[in-house]
């Protein structure tokens, strides 16, 4: 009798906390049986490359969601940073363009937090609409700045070795963008679990009023999460346009929903106060593996879009059942 209850508990814990991991393992096993091409080196490198932009955006989004907010402006920031950075390679050189791009992303993220704090928007829904409006503005700025044209990296006259390294270079078996991701993950994980500011984000997300009364600087942590999200989005933009070797002013479209999908599927709860960047890595892995498998199996892009929506709805539903 006792053992049976334990067994049930184990199943429950697996379903509650490691559902994503189980899904990933299942997906890998099924696909490698159905489609042997899945486990070839070429495909695995491909998956590693696809990881780049989405995981950067999703890692930044994780903190925003842990803090109990949401950031829809990432698609606008992504487009803006991509077109600005690529246009600055010629006049400022590669390093200058990189730095300006990252500063621009950071500034955009900070601007979001300034607006949210100034208007006292303490609800997720309010933040959602404010950042959506900001996304429209950033996206329009990207269109105006670029004149609506896509800029190819091949026509840039200056040296673009850093960007081609980010896009296609490898160190051993790992691609450069994957190494960038590992470094960011390490830094963010240390920030999340070992620093004072990292823990205040969790407390702010858990209960804002209680955190404020306990003397936690909630305003500073809200500003911080949006700034981090902006910075990580800028990194994502750089990885993305390096990989596709061109920057279009609508390059970031769809990244906001995909990033939210990755974070929520990973198991970070939308209510806030809970979650981890490691979970986001799992969630992103699942999202990318899924689209890779579906591509290999020849499922249409529209069907994939539909499945993503279905998984998002399912993940949120399971997430809310956890709260009950």
């Amino acid at each position, binding site marked *: 009798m006792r053992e049976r209850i334990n067994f049930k508990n184990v199943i429950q814990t697996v379903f509650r906390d490691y559902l994503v991991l189980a899904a990933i393992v299942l997906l890998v096993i099924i696909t490698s049986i159905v489609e042997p091409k899945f486990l070839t080196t070429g495909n695995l490198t491909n998956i590693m490359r696809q990881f780049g932009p989405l995981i950067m955006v999703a890692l930044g989004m994780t903190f925003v969601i842990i803090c109990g907010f949401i950031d829809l402006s990432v698609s606008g920031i992504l487009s803006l940073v991509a077109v600005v950075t690529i246009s600055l390679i010629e006049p400022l050189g590669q390093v200058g363009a990189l730095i300006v791009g990252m500063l621009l992303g950071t500034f955009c993220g900070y601007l979001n937090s300034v607006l949210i704090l100034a208007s006292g928007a303490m609800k997720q829904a309010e933040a959602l609409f404010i950042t959506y*409006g900001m996304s429209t503005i950033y996206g329009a700025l990207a269109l105006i700045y670029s004149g609506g044209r896509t800029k190819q990296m091949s026509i840039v006259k200056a040296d673009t070795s850093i960007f081609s390294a980010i896009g296609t270079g490898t160190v051993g078996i790992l691609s450069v963008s994957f190494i960038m991701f590992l470094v960011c993950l390490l830094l963010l994980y240390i920030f999340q679990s070992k620093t004072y500011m990292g823990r205040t984000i969790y407390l702010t997300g858990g209960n804002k009023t209680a955190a404020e009364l306990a003397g936690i600087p909630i305003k500073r942590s809200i500003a911080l999460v949006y700034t981090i999200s902006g910075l990580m989005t800028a990194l994502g933009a750089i990885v993305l346009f390096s990989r596709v070797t061109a920057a279009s002013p609508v390059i970031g479209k769809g990244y906001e929903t995909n990033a939210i999908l990755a974070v929520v599927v990973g198991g970070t709860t939308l209510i806030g106060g809970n979650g981890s960047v490691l979970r986001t890595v799992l969630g992103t892995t699942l999202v990318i593996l899924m689209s890779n498998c579906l591509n290999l199996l020849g499922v249409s892009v529209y069907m994939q879009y539909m499945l993503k929506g279905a998984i998002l709805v399912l993940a949120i539903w399971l997430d809310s059942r956890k709260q009950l």
Partner: protein
Amino acid sequence: MKNINIGKKLLNIATKQKAVLAVIVILVIMIFPKTNFYTAYNLFDMIKSVSILMILAYGVTLVLVAGGCDLSIGGIMIVAGIVAIKLMNANIPMWISILAALLVGAVVGAINGYLVVYQNTEPFIITLGMGMLLTGIAQQLTDAHPIPCNNPNFVKLANDKLFNTIPNLVIVMIIVFFIIHYILRYTSFGRNCYAIGGDYEVAKYSGINVLPTKAMTFVICGITAALGGVMLSSMLNSGSSTYGDTTALVVNCGVVVGGTSFAGGIGSAPQSAIGLLVFGVLQNSMNMLGIDAYVQQIIQGIVIVTIICLDCYGRKRKREAV
């Protein structure tokens, strides 16, 4: 002393009726440049162009008043329009096809309602996911190409004009307006919505059947969104999966601009109509002045951010006053 009082009163009206003020300001500005803005044709065209968004907005008002939020309306709109056209192309009579499209909206609304109310999920995220799912379905149904309609009567539905002046689309919009206004204002269901949005717990303990009432608002919102989709398809005589991208957020912002609050319990159909009118008048006058499309996008974004921030700020001050 008297002057201060009048000033205060004006300021009060201005902060409460931001949308009316915005419309008046734009209308006054448009008197000066020489454009075709003040012609009957243009004014009807302007109303017609926002009519579809207004039809959607009335349903959203109901949901927001009851304390929910629906971002799947863009998806419902395009799927319903495509379903209506697909059925008509299969030689099914027009009215049956339209009813089927409305049924699709009701079913999606019921699913939203079930997930939000009975499963206690966060409304705007779950409906955002639902919108994504529906966009995928729409793309799958049309292969991401616009599909034309074979039934010649369908295009007349929205584009014919009553007495050769008022487009049918505007008439449908006005009918929906009165229905939703009646529901919110004069039925016990509507009054219960305000109570639920105002304070969920109090409404529950005062014996209102909170769960079905709140779920019902999502169903009605689904039906109005589907009606908007049918009218859109009729206006363009085709169904396409590309229109609904930003509809949901624009409509929700418009409703909030009109004075309905995210927090629930406040709002009405006339207010939402004026909120959407702000966007319509703004867009039309910017087109008339020949402003660049990208700059228009920025101006629209700034308007959205400003008005939502003001809405939040007003609530913050109220919280602090208590």
